[in-house]
Every structure is written in structure tokens, then in C-alpha cells.
């Protein structure tokens, strides 16, 4: 088991965003979390990375209890993630972004000043090739179109050393061609042994991609199983129809 979420509950004032939510994520699989608007999907990600404090429950990454760890330590331990709204560093270039993601020594001032510069050129090229991103490396984040920003965001998450990749709606608002492209990228990553947890609003997108699906509604896992099983689940259809 790569990631285990046990009985996690989170309330925002009167809103119960997560309600005793439990999920188990197997290695080297693509696992999808689907559910209607406001069902708690993004909150689940934020609770896993500890950007939002949960009320109760425990979380394990590769058997290690990460429940009480600080957000940046959770990232160091191997969780790489994107946000529903793309987050980029507005004054930095594409190369800067990828180097920040790749380098684990840049927090050390002395090493950063006097150490040998790591040559990441090739790894950066490989990652950009994989996601099919062809802008010059010195382009600033703010000069990119929406689709390009989504791709760069994905590239950064892939570049960051990780055990699991968590993507919050990587194809939301993206044109059909790019949607297909991203689907292919995710398949390639799985083949290379990556574990991917993907949030997706649109059930159809994950049907031929995910190995396993969890369905959230009002913060609860109302169903889980293979895409085929989920597709015909009565509770799931009701949740989506009632939206």
C-alpha cells in the first residue's frame, strides 16, 4: 500500500467536508477520486499534504505515519502534488521552476554558493519531452497560456522526487486534444512505475484510465471499485444526477 487514509474527518464551521473518509492507494496504479462539486476531493488532498489541519484520522505514506508531519516534510517524504488552481512562481522562468522541483540541496546556503552546480539539463529536457512542452526554458511563467500553465504544473510535479503523484483536476478547462495528451502522459508514467492519485470531476475521463476509483459525496466514500463496477453503481448515479 503506498498511501493509506484512515477515518479522516474535517469540518469547516458547519460544513462537513470530509466524513470518516478512508482510502487505500496501491502502488504503481492510477487511482481516481471522483465526486460532484463540493464533495471534499480537494480538501482530501489538502489534508493529506497537511495544508489544512484535519479534525481526526490518520494518514500513512508507504507505512510511515505522516499524520502529524509538517507540510514541507510530507513533500520531502515523497508526496508530489498539484492544485486545482495552477500555482506557479510569477517572476521565475520555466527552467527555474523545474530546477527548484528537482534540487533537494538548494535550501543549504553554503552548498548553494560553493558546491558544484548539478547539471539538470538532461532531466529537464526529458521531463519536458514527456509532457510535450516546447516553450524556451527562459520563458516566464506569466507568459504562458492556460493550457501551457497546466502542463508546466504537471511537469513540476513529475520532476519533484516522489513516491506518489497527486493531481487535482489536471485536465479541467483543457482542450480535448490536450486532454488526450495528458491521459497518455499519465499512462506512460504508470508504466514507469509511478503511483498516481488523480481527482477528476468528469467520470468519463477516468473510465478508460484509472485502475480503481473512489467516489466521494458529502465527504464520504460512497463507492469504490473498478471503473466498470462504479459506472453502474446506483448510489454513484444518484449522486451525480442529484448534482
Amino acid at each position, binding site marked *: 500500500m503506498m498511501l493509506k487514509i484512515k477515518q479522516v474527518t474535517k469540518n469547516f464551521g458547519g460544513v462537513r467536508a470530509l466524513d470518516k473518509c478512508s482510502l487505500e492507494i496501491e502502488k504503481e496504479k492510477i487511482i481516481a477520486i471522483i465526486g460532484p462539486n463540493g464533495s471534499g476531493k480537494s480538501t482530501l488532498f489538502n489534508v493529506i499534504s497537511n495544508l489544512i489541519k484535519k479534525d481526526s484520522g490518520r494518514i500513512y505514506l508507504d507505512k510511515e505515519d505522516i499524520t502529524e508531519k509538517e507540510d514541507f516534510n510530507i513533500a520531502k517524504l515523497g508526496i508530489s502534488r498539484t492544485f486545482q488552481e495552477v500555482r506557479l*512562481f510569477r517572476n*521565475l522562468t520555466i527552467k527555474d521552476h523545474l530546477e*527548484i522541483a528537482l534540487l533537494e540541496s*538548494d535550501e543549504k546556503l553554503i552548498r548553494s554558493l560553493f558546491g558544484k552546480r548539478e547539471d539538470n539539463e538532461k532531466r529537464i529536457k526529458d521531463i519536458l519531452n514527456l509532457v510535450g512542452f516546447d516553450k524556451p526554458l527562459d520563458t516566464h511563467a506569466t507568459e504562458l497560456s492556460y493550457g501551457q500553465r497546466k502542463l508546466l504544473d504537471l511537469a513540476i510535479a513529475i520532476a519533484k522526487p516522489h513516491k506518489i503523484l497527486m493531481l487535482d483536476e489536471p485536465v479541467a478547462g483543457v482542450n480535448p486534444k490536450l486532454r488526450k495528451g495528458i491521459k497518455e502522459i499519465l499512462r506512460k508514467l504508470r508504466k514507469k512505475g509511478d503511483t498516481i492519485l488523480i481527482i477528476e470531476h468528469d467520470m468519463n475521463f477516468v473510465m478508460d484510465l484509472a485502475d480503481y476509483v473512489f467516489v466521494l459525496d458529502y465527504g464520504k466514500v460512497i463507492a469504490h471499485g473498478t471503473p466498470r463496477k462504479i459506472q453502474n453503481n446506483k448510489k454513484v448515479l444518484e449522486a451525480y444526477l442529484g448534482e
Partner: protein
Amino acid sequence: MPVEFISPYITNLLIFIGIYIILVVSLNLTLGYTGMLNLGHVALFAIGAYTSALLMTRLDFPFVIAFLAAGIFAGFFGYVLVLATKKLKGDYFALATLGFAFIVVNLLLNLQGLTHGPLGIPGIPKPSLFGLTIQSNFSYLIFVAIVAFVSVFIIYKIVKSPFGRILEATRDDEIGLRVLGKNTVKLKYKAMIISGFFAGIAGSLFAHYLSFIDPSSFHLSEIILVLTIVIVGGLASIKGSILASFVILLIPEVLRFLALPSSIIGPGRQIIYALILITILMYKPRGLFGRVDLE
């Protein structure tokens, strides 16, 4: 003799500009590069000035030790300032650092046993290095120029390094950087310690040049002046900070040549700085060389 080539008036101005360059470039490290709304920088400058002055006048420390201690002590206070405010963000952090600046000035005024309060500390000796005392203003200028050059060079190296890049990333999106595994709080400590160190040695240069310091040199108007220089030069631009130090410190000098009474020159300076700041903010908000876009 080179002394004859530069008039005492110009030498004096250049010494101040050199000291301000260190002060302003080091402020840009926290304010411009790391995005910390740091209004406490002048307090760290004051701490450096007093540390160096007291160590030499009271304890007869050699200059080199007093000079380095000024940097280290100011850096330490920078650390304490971030520690005390680590839960505060944005405007609240700015207010807290401004509060810190007022507390420091008040302590300088009231810890009379240590600082002589408003009377200040007279008789601060000129620096001696390796048995040579820096007596003339011209040699002091050379000394300031060397320290300023080395300081700016070090800060330049820092901001261009991978470490400097994540300082900028902290400014642009702190959460986005934390989820990439960087401890942004620790980064802010480091930025503030480095920034404080250079403010402190600038303070030492200031104290030993004037040979007299009192709390009036570290008031609010001083904070506004250094902020104006950083903003006019541009956030996250070292070149801009250096150029703006010259421009901003030279402009009010025209008042001298208009033969105005000194009761007008003082407030006149403040008005000129305020006008420059407003003009820049209205017409060129990024400053002369700023490339940074804040949200």
C-alpha cells in the same frame, strides 16, 4: 596626493552613499527578493552602530572584532525578529517589524546606563586595521568602498544561486514552494540573518565615520528613506538599489546650493523624498530596474 582630487564635500557624500548602498542592497534581500515586508531594517542598522561603538568605547575591543560583532549581533536580532513574528503574514508582519524599530529606538533612548540615551555616544574611535589607523576621510572612503563592494558581491552571489532562487519563489508563492518540500520559514530566518548582518556592518561603518551616534539617526524618516531607495531602484534589483542610492542621496543636495536656511533644508529633504516616492509609485511602480511583479 589623491586627496586633492576629491573635495571634502564630495568625499563625505560618497562615504554616506557607500554605507547606504550596503544598507539598501541588504534590505532588498528581504524586502525585494524574499518578499518580507520588513520595516525593521533601520533598527538592525542601529543595533550594528551601537554594538560597534560600545564595544570600542567601553571595552576597548579592536575594530575588526567590533565591526564583525556589529554584523553578527544585528543578524541575531534579525533572527529574533522573524522568530517573534513567525505566525504573522503580510501587513501584520510589516506592522510588527515597524513596532520592533520603535522599540529599538526607545531602548536606545531609555537604557541610559548603556547608551547615554538622547545624549548619544561621543568619541567613537576611527577604525584601525592591521596596525594602521584610518584617519583621513579619503582613506575612510576607500575602506567603505571596499566593504560595500564585497558586501554587494556576496549578496549578488547569494541571489543568483539556487538558494536565491528559492528566496524568490518564497516571495512569489510560499505554499507552492512548501509543497515542493522547502522549509520556507527557515529560508526567511536565513534571509533575515544575512540581511541583518550587512545592516549591522553598515551601522558600524556609520558609527566610526561620524565618531558620534545618537538615537535620532535611526528614526522613522530613516526607515522611509531606505524604503524609498529600494522602491525607486526596484524590488529584487541590486543594480537598481545601487543607482537609486546615488540618485536619492544626491538630489536633495541641490537644496544646499540654493542657499536656503537649514530650517528649510531638513523638511525640504523629506518633501523631496516623499515626492519622488509618490511619482515612482504612480508612473513606474516597479522602480528604475524592478522586474518583480507583486500580487
